């Protein structure tokens, strides 16, 4: 069994499979296990773990406690193609390799939703996720004044982590509309069932109050300004203009499933209208329409680390079950816990639903950074008759750069659908083809074959 992605879902899937004696391969791009949430967990020292907090420290429990010859962890491996018959192709420092697995669990996690405000491509503007990545490894703290802006739990968490580390946070600017809170309130009972999450949220808010950065809520019309480098974040609250000088601006608008692999595999995807993202279709145990391929964790729909771990458990149990193991009790137990963990999602999804800023940016805002296509450029093409994102890609080049639309795919579709006044399902999503990541000629040439007659 092969698992792609060594975050909570992948790590638990491997651990469970090993309990049943299933030989495993675990591949991940990073040099160590942990995924995004527990990045570098095996190497973080006490001081850093204290800054990152107790939720981060929980990741240690997922690491293997001893050497295990049936477990093959391959780190620094960038997987760029998988096939329906179980082939996995990847690059690592010594070149390209391939392996074949009877079962594959895709645990490729989430990516940050881009937040294309005017000026977001200026040097000195990054995503909050990138800021947190630098904090976890190599332990970099930003110098100068930092502004965090956007919406989503990561924004609070990073503000608290920076606060603990003594970073100068000039402001926390939340764009979450008040209306979201009203919509989310209807789903409060679910949140109350997931007590741990509620406690964590409250503790974070208390901590933020104590740390005391300026806190703006319901901010609108965000703009990063500066010439060579970001100088300030401008926005309005209740009609009043604000300009907060900063040296670093960190933006965040929640996370969405990373669908590059499931799209390239041509699996069916469903539109999530609350979270405004595509989710690959999967059933119990993460089953997909490809019989030997399962999904687990945020890659199948945003669920958070604890639920992702349970999905990893369920996917591995399903594989063990197919191999004849008696797993019914374990499946029922994990399934119950998962539904409790998921009870809070409707509340969170509604509270942190992406705002209009990032779904309908002004004309001069760059949407596709690789090919420098603006929102206005997309609207022009829509006016000239483009009906779906693949036509748009062919004509205007958004999504044609090295990231293959991973960054801009959702925004391009939102802008096009709004210009045409169509449901987003009608404008579709970029057709993706292998390789899912850039691969060198040297590496590709290793897979040359004698030509068919």
């Amino acid at each position, binding site marked *: 069994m092969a698992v792609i992605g060594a975050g909570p879902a992948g790590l638990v899937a491997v651990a469970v499979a090993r309990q049943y004696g299933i030989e495993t391969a675990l591949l991940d791009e990073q040099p160590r296990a942990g995924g995004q949430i527990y990045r570098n967990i095996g190497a973080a020292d006490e001081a850093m773990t204290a800054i990152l907090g107790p939720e981060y420290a929980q990741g240690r429990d997922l690491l293997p406690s001893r050497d295990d010859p049936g477990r093959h962890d391959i780190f620094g491996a960038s997987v760029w193609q998988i096939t329906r018959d179980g082939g996995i192709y990847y690059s690592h420092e010594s070149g390209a390799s391939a392996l074949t697995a009877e079962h594959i669990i895709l645990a490729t996690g989430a990516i940050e939703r881009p937040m294309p405000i005017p000026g977001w491509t200026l040097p000195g503007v990054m995503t909050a996720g990138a800021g947190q990545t630098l904090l976890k490894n190599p332990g970099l703290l930003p110098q100068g004044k930092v502004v965090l802006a956007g919406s989503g739990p990561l924004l609070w968490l990073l503000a608290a982590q920076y606060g603990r580390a003594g970073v100068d946070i000039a402001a926390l600017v939340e764009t979450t509309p008040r209306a979201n809170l009203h919509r989310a309130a209807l789903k409060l009972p679910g949140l109350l069932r997931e007590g741990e999450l509620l406690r964590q949220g409250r503790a974070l808010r208390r901590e933020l109050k104590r740390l005391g950065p300026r806190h703006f809520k319901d901010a609108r019309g965000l703009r990063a300004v500066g010439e060579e480098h970001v100088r300030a974040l401008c926005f309005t609250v209740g009609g009043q203009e604000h300009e907060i000088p900063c040296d670093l601006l960190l933006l965040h608008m929640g996370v969405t499933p990373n669908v590059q692999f499931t799209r390239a595999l041509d699996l069916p995807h469903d539109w999530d209208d609350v979270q405004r993202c595509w989710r690959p279709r999967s059933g119990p145990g993460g089953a997909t329409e490809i019989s030997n391929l399962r999904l687990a964790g945020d890659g199948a729909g945003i669920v958070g680390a604890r639920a992702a771990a349970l999905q990893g458990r369920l996917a591995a149990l399903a594989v063990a079950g197919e191999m004849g193991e008696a797993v019914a009790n374990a499946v029922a137990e994990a399934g119950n816990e998962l539904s409790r963990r998921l009870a809070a999602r409707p509340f969170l999804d509604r509270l942190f639903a992406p705002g209009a800023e990032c779904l309908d940016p002004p004309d001069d805002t760059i949407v596709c950074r690789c090919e420098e296509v603006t929102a206005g450029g997309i609207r022009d093409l829509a006016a000239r008759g483009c009906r779906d994102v693949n036509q748009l890609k*062919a004509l205007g080049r958004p999504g044609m750069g090295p990231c*293959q639309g991973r960054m801009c795919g959702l925004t391009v579709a939102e802008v096009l659908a709004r210009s045409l006044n169509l449901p987003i399902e009608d404008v579709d999503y970029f057709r993706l083809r*292998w390789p899912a990541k850039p691969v060198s*000629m040297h590496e590709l040439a290793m897979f*040359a074959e004698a030509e068919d007659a």
Partner: protein
Amino acid sequence: MPDTSDVIIVGGGLHGLSTAIHLAKAGLNTVVLEKDHPGRHASGVNAGGVRRLGRHLAEVPLSVAALEVWENIDDFVGDDCGFSACGQIQIAETEAELAQQAARVEELRTLGFEHERLIDQAALRQIVPALARHCVGAIWCPEDGAANPYRTTQAYFRTARSLGVRVELGAAVANIERAGADWQVRTVRDSFQAPVLVNTAGAWGHRVGRMIGDDAPVEPAAPMLMITERVEPFITPVLGAAGRKLSFKQYGNGTVMIGGGQRGRAVPERNIAETKLAGMGNSAATVKALFPQLGPVNVVRCWAGIEAIMPDVIPVIGPSKAAAGAYHAFGFSGHGFQLSPIVGRLLCELITEGKSSLPIEAFAIDRFDNVQSS
């Protein structure tokens, strides 16, 4: 009541739209039925080669006439279609390949065509200094070049509509019947009627052919293309090789497109084409052999499009064999892009004058009558 017109064209790719443009200019009321949108398959996702070099002898007169249109493509469709006469070159890696190329150039010359020129190693190195040193010579067509396929398709589409052609999108043809002397074509939504029917349905051309009683052995295939990351400009012409499957072109933005016939997997039932790693590997190996310095360069994107390949790799162009008032142009076998301006003109001549101004006998649909249909 069915929609009535003078001509119904099935297939809104480049050949269908070119035919529609010529017919509209001749004053005929024309409807194009397109199952997806223009440029969804071969017309939009090909390599964009505007190439006379290396054409099958039967295609040469058409290709030469087509280039004359390409050189002023703005006059035809009101857009430069991204055309640039950057030259096309076909390299020889051995003396034996060069000897074959010399014979080819000589054969064309005896037929009255002088666009292909044989050049030696020194001249080749001057034109493509970055090429591996073992290459011994080439055929060189400096007036040939490349254009942007999707932009071209859109320009054809706009021009056709501006001339009053109705292009129905999402109009997959369900069946075709006779209604008196007319053709009646039913799509998923509507019904269309006209005395003349044109089949420019590409990889689906044989299916439309069968609906009117013509059989042709089309094999749907999926030629693949790869695009590299941006690199410093190092080559101007489009480069092919006598002994390898290769079409190689660097764009103005620095990316390099690599194609040339490595095939993916066509799945016409699902309307998609998948890439195949072995073919991408072969292309990469070819690139490394001819441009070793590109070894570390990343391929950032691959794609494949569905195209119709004929057993003799030349298209079907001409009247139906089975039925009066029907015409075909499909099965361009991976090299129909350059021919699109001229094929529409010839079909228009067939429809309005009953004859073609250029020889098209070699493309008759009945040439497969003794061939087992696939």
